[in-house]
């Protein structure tokens, strides 16, 4: 051993000596710490991760646009672009660039609305709930009055008074049983069975439709003015406006119930949100007030 010690080169001796030096210990430890911290920092950097699925999707879009698959180089470019987009977006967020940006705000609000809106069908209401809803909205399901009647037409394009006179003369005749149809040809039907007052309103005007509701039954009466001329009318039967029972209107009532339930739910959600905030509006600009 001594032999070997005595054979030591001066350099080696120096290293050995330095190894024992506390200053060197200090420097070495410092360097290690430095490298360690660097490594730790690098591990702590936020990660931009693009998984195989997203990469596949991106490459897919590229292919549909270009009508071929990207080369490796082009794939690198796609990745690059995606990474840039991500880091730019994150930097923008960290700088608060999303604040006071109408586009960003609208998109977020839209996403939130979408996420909160219940698009699935709501559970069926129980019998009592549906009945209560129906009682409240009954008027919506009312069926219009319906009329069964015939009429005779007298065109007034060539003079109102003459048409009225013809109609009155005809009324006298049909009332006393002389002849049945003394009117003129008419482009719309001359008789209606169980016709809805809504349709008659639309086709003849309100005066005519209204007269059908009050005219005496089973006898000719008139003349009544319409949008076309004068008419004699004979009402055979009338069914007044009718409100159906829940059973008769069930499917309509159910869909109306669900529609309003969905709306109510969405409104309640927004209401709840609004309550979490205090709204302050600091004046309305002059330009809006005019």
């Amino acid at each position, binding site marked *: 051993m001594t032999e070997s010690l005595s054979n030591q080169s001066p350099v080696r001796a120096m290293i050995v000596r330095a190894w024992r030096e506390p200053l060197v210990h200090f420097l070495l430890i410092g360097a290690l710490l430095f490298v360690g911290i660097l490594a730790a920092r690098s591990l702590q950097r936020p990660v931009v991760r693009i998984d195989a699925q997203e990469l596949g999707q991106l490459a897919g*879009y590229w292919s549909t646009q270009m009508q071929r698959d990207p080369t490796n180089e082009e794939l690198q470019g796609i990745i690059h672009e995606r990474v840039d987009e991500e880091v730019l977006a994150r930097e923008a967020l960290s700088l608060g660039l999303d604040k006071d940006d109408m586009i960003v705000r609208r998109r977020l609000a839209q996403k939130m609305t979408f996420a909160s809106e219940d698009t699935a069908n709501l559970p069926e209401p129980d019998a009592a709930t549906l009945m209560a809803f129906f009682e409240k909205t009954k008027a919506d399901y009312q*069926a219009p009055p319906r009329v069964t009647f015939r009429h005779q037409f007298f065109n007034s394009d060539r003079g109102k008074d003459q048409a009225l006179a013809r109609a009155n003369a005809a009324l006298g005749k049909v009332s006393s049983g002389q002849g049945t149809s003394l009117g003129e*040809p008419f482009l719309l039907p001359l008789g209606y*069975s169980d016709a809805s007052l809504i349709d008659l309103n639309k086709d*003849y005007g309100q005066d005519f439709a209204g007269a059908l509701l009050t005219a005496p039954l089973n006898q000719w009466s008139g003349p009544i003015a319409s*949008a076309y*001329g004068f008419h004699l009318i004979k009402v055979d039967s009338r069914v007044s406006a009718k409100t159906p*029972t829940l059973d008769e209107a069930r499917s309509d009532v159910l869909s109306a119930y669900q529609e309003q339930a969905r709306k109510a739910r969405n409104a309640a959600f927004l209401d709840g949100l609004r309550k979490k905030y205090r709204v302050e509006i600091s004046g309305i600009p002059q330009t809006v007030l005019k």
Partner: protein
Amino acid sequence: MGYRWRTTAGSLTALAVVLAAFPGSTAGSGSALTGPSAAKAAVGAKKVTPPSRLPGYNTERNAYFGDLHVHTKLSFDAYIFNVRASPDDAYRFAKGETLGHSSGFNIRLSGGPLDFVAVTDHSEYIGALQEAADTNSPLNKLPIVDGLFSTNPVNIGAAFSRIIEAMGNNTLPKEFSDKRIASKAWKEIRDSAERHNDPGRFTTFVGYEFTSAPDGRNLHRNVIFKNAKVPELPYSAVQSQDPENLWLQMETWRKAGVEALAIPHNMNGSDGLMYEQTRRDGRAMDKAYADLRMRNEPLAEMTQIKGTSETHPSLSPNDEWANFEIMESYIGRAKAITKFSGGYVRDALKAGILMQDNKGFNPFKFGFIGASDTHNAAPGSVEDRNYFSKVGRTDGMPERRGSIPAEGRKTWDVATPDPNGNLGRFQSWGASGLAGVWAEENSRDAIYTAMRRKETFATSGPRMRVRFFAAYDYPQNILKRSDLVTVAYRNGVPMGGDLMPSKGKAPQFILWAMRDPNSGYLQRAQIVKGWVQNGVAKEAVFDVACSDNLAVNPATGRCPDNGAMVDLSTCEPMRYKGDAEMRTLWRDPTFKPNQRAFYYARVLENPSCRWSTWDAIRNGTPPNPTLLPTIQERVWSSPIWYAPSL
């Protein structure tokens, strides 16, 4: 009126009516009467077997009004125009309910509910834009939609152009045609039509638009299905831009029991392509082609908001009323049309009879309907006094469609800049296009069958009714007979029909029109004739009935001016001008038995304010001096054809 009318089981029982002679009524008096005792007995009955005939059933047919061209948010472009209304909303609007417009006001039909409607969203990328607006969807990240969902109109416009262009040359990303998206939308359309179909009251059809436009030249057509039996997915222009392939697909469907017809529209935007005289692939037409086309396209939507395609002033220089709501631009962009022949129905009908003479077949033997083409989910919104145009927020406000001066100005001294020509296009659009059909009852079967036999008419919006029949021997007194319609059918053919060859006599035409009670009075009734003479197709317009006791001037063939006017400061028409009804029997004085011909009726109202004038009055500014202040609303019947031999 505060409440909505609904179908209920109670009213359904009333449908159980049987056809019976009404006591005391004259046989065949044009009456729609069905047995009242049966109707009464049925009311209150709990259960009835499905009725074979609906209320209002009329063997002599009723006029029903509808709209078979309606877009909702499921159409890619409507969604871009900020329209968020659904097919359900569209049907509700048609039934008279109020709907919110994307520009923030309420809209409602002032003329009352329609009788039938089909929602016909663009089948290309159906539902895809709604999907693309969802940031969770991969579609949202496609570069092509970049800016589309922003609030910046310039970016939206740029994205829209990009998408239209990509659609045109078929380079839209595949994601847009994702089958799952399309299936979901198609299901919504089918379900909605099913929900709202209410026989006897309101008829719906499942339909879609086949949106083909080679080089931007419009070949769009709507496909309307007879009933709920429809294909799994529409056949769209993504599969082929060639309409012939659509018809072949329809033939395949038909063999599988799926019955449909296609209705082309906006021939005016096709730059002559709609009625080109070769097949789309350049091959010559033949009889098989003509049969295929007519089997699948018996009708043409010849008027709609994007202009009326009856005829162009340059094609019909002798028709003083040819200049009606003419649009001379491509669809969706301000590129000028250069070729009018091939883009208008009268011209095509003429080309058709000429081809029949020369080659033995006629690929252009179609009837007429009108439709709105609303992209606001607002069927029937073609009322001049109640107009909000048709592409959502893009033209929802008067300023956006150029009917009032820009930026709150009170005069037209300063020209409004129109860099992309949109304003000019919107100004040239008309509040026009409604379908009329003569059908026994308001049901899918009856209305579809009427469309098949072309017993249809088109109006510029008002619900005017027109009857049109032809025969060789109508009784002299027919116009005064109470069985007019019975005899008209029995002895002749209605609109859409074919006259038998003449045995020497000239045909007679019954033209009978009735005003819309909510619109103006009638001014004149006309018959438009096209015929082949010495190998050349010709046309003429005959006035056949005049209002206000006036008579046709034999020298000019025209009614004298009835003096009807409109007060342009209120849009109030002059009172006591025009007729409620026009009824005439006309024998063609120029008829030659050896000349092939067609005839259709056109009836004009008195002048009334155009939508642009209504907009200006409401705004308190003068009407745009570059636009016509008034129009004459009108109705067109489908043609009746005459062939010299069978």
